[in-house]
């Protein structure tokens, strides 16, 4: 019975993701799905909190997603339960597993990047242009009405994060001195 429910939910989500991939659907709904899917292909270093600890998804700055993001609350990835945290305070980020830097923070991106570079085990995602070049790990961008992404493997490697080669195959470009395949 339980398995049946899960299957229904998955099918619903898949439909949603497919819909989001179109240009006419909400851009941020697609981006939210991308964030969720990235988490599946990333390996976090082992922490003291254990393998089944929560996986906080932090939104830094204004929340462009709206209520769609709350659907991710409680979803499990690799045995860890995702919870969404909205913040403007950089110091809150040290307890996050994933941080999405809202485009509202474009002005203080250098300050943010500097702060983030010291935090291990934090996956950084943003749709601010040039985010990957500035040391962000995954940068979302629109191309031909489709959401695509870039990956900076160096940044990820420094934060002790391992990104699956299966994703890299899909990335528009990979900024890397080396790959971890």
């Amino acid at each position, binding site marked *: 019975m339980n398995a049946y429910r899960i299957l229904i939910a998955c099918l619903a989500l*898949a439909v949603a*993701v*497919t819909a989001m991939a179109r240009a006419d659907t909400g851009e941020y709904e697609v981006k939210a799905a991308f964030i969720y899917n990235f988490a*599946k292909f990333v390996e976090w270093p082992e922490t003291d909190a254990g393998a089944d600890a929560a996986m906080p998804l932090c939104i830094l700055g204004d929340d462009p997603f709206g209520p769609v993001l709350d659907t991710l609350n409680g979803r499990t990835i690799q045995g860890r339960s995702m919870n969404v945290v909205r913040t403007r305070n950089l110091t809150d980020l040290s307890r996050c597993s994933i941080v999405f830097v809202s485009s509202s923070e474009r002005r203080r991106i250098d300050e943010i990047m500097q702060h983030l570079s010291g935090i291990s085990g934090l996956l950084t995602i943003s749709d601010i242009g040039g985010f990957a070049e500035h040391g962000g790990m995954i940068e979302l961008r629109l191309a031909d009405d489709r959401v695509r992404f870039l990956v900076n493997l160096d940044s990820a490697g420094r934060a002790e994060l391992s990104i699956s080669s*299966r994703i890299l195959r*899909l990335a528009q470009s990979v900024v890397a001195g080396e790959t971890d395949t």
Partner: protein
Amino acid sequence: MIRRFKNISIGHKLLIIYGIACFVVLSLSAVVLTVSTWLNARDAAQVELESIAKLIGANSTAALVFNDTGAAQEILETLRTNPDVMLGVLFNPAGEELSRYQEPGFEPVSRALIDDTETTLIDGMQVTVYRPITLDGQAVGSILLQSTLHSRLAHLQGTILPLLGMLLVTFAIAMAIALVLARSITLPIRHLSDLMVRISREDNFQLRARLNQKDEIGVLAEGVNGMLARIEQRDAEIGAHRHHLEEQVEKRTAELRDANLRVKTELEELARAEKELKQAHQELELQHTNSSLLSEMNDRLQVCHAIEDISPVVTHYLHRLLPEGGGGLYLFDRTRSLVESVVTWGEMASVDAVFAQEECWALRQGRLHVVEDPESGLLCPHCSNGSAQAYVCAPMIAYGELIGVLHLSATETSSISGATRQVILSAAEHLAVAIANLRLREALHMKSVRDPLTDLFNRRYLQETLERELARTNRNGHSTAVLMIDIDHFKGFNDLYGHEAGDIVLREFATFLRDTVRTEDVACRYGGEEFIILMPGADLEIARERAEQIRSGAPELSLVHNGKAVPKVRVSVGVAVSPLHGDNVEALIGAADAALYTAKRDGRDRVRLAKPVNGTGALRDRKRVNQRP
């Protein structure tokens, strides 16, 4: 089919058997080999396709998750390296096709055949594998792969064909070897069968099998040779015996014919004899029964005391001896010269109860007279007024004396058989003798108790009878009278006319006495001219009257001797009655004697009664009375 197989030669049979066996074994091996190779190839193709599905599924998770058609297509293009894989399709979780790889000209199976679970299908020359793809426990899509088995079939053909060729060569070699080896069996057998054909055609038992083998055929050949030798020997012996045998047969046949004839005749005679024997046995049995009955009857007759006693015996036994019909016993009365019926039994035709001797043919002729058919037979006059029935009259003659006749009447249905005649004759004989003996006994008894001259009872009889009567009358209170009679002057008759005249007087007087007394009275000659009448039950008065009757009647006797009249007879009578004058023989006779003496003394020709009681004196006077003048 099997009948035809039976009739072909052993060589061909062996070859066919070998051929079939080889062919079956080799064919089965080829089939098993081919099938197992093919199944292995199919399994291998399936396993290969399943591992490809697994690999592609794992590699395409990201493309599926991010809905990246290009990446998916890139992954599927790797299938091109495997020429057997004809189709590869990736579906997103909604079941929509994300990307497809398909060999040109390939007709894929319908998607409808496949549900959303793991599926592996082998359909003809196609292998289909469908696998859902999961990531982190979630379904992210599915993959459908199809491959063809054509290349593997081609490979199989390449392997099997040379194998089949090799099998054919093996078969040929095996058959060649079998052909050579079979000759070691077929040649000697053909030799034997040829030999048999020659023997039966030429009728020549001198031929022999020439084989040098130690196997079963060798044994067979030796056996055949031995048999042939024996047949040859027997042939000679048979030839020698045949002539003799034919003679023997002829002789025996003739003998047999004779014997048969004899046996037949003997059997017929035997049957006849048996029948006769049976009849004789039956007759014998009947005779035995009859003779035992006759002897039983004879025994019974022996103990009969009087003629009257024999009636029930005769009735009983003759009725048992001759149950059919009836009969009668008739005795001849000599004094009257008549035949009288004594007893009759059963159903009997009416026969005269009394008839003359001449009226019966049996009595006339002195032998058995049989009338089997009353219509035509000679009927006795004494039977002639009876109804028409067959009958037998058997004369009864003993000691040359006619006793009587035994008469038997048949019923209307029965006849008189020889056995019946025999029984009647025997019965008549027995009866005749028995009756004659009875009469003889009676006559003897008579002689012993009677006086021969007068035929009156003698003194001894009187003594016995008186004793008996006295005992009886004393018991029941009746009286018994005794009259003692003496003829007066009897000595004078003797003296004047001789002893013969005396005898006549005595005889006539005795007759007179017999006629005068009652039937129950007993008249005796007591001695000389003395008589006694014993009157049982008579009292004194009756006795006196009777005495007077006798006294007065005696002179009326007219006696003639030698033409001369004899003087009148006068008698004196003494009367005594018991118990008045004595209750025993001596006393009573003594009293009567005394009374007689008194009558004599008083002048003769008178009756005197005894004096009552004292009879001892009378007894004492007995001598004196006898010496009277």
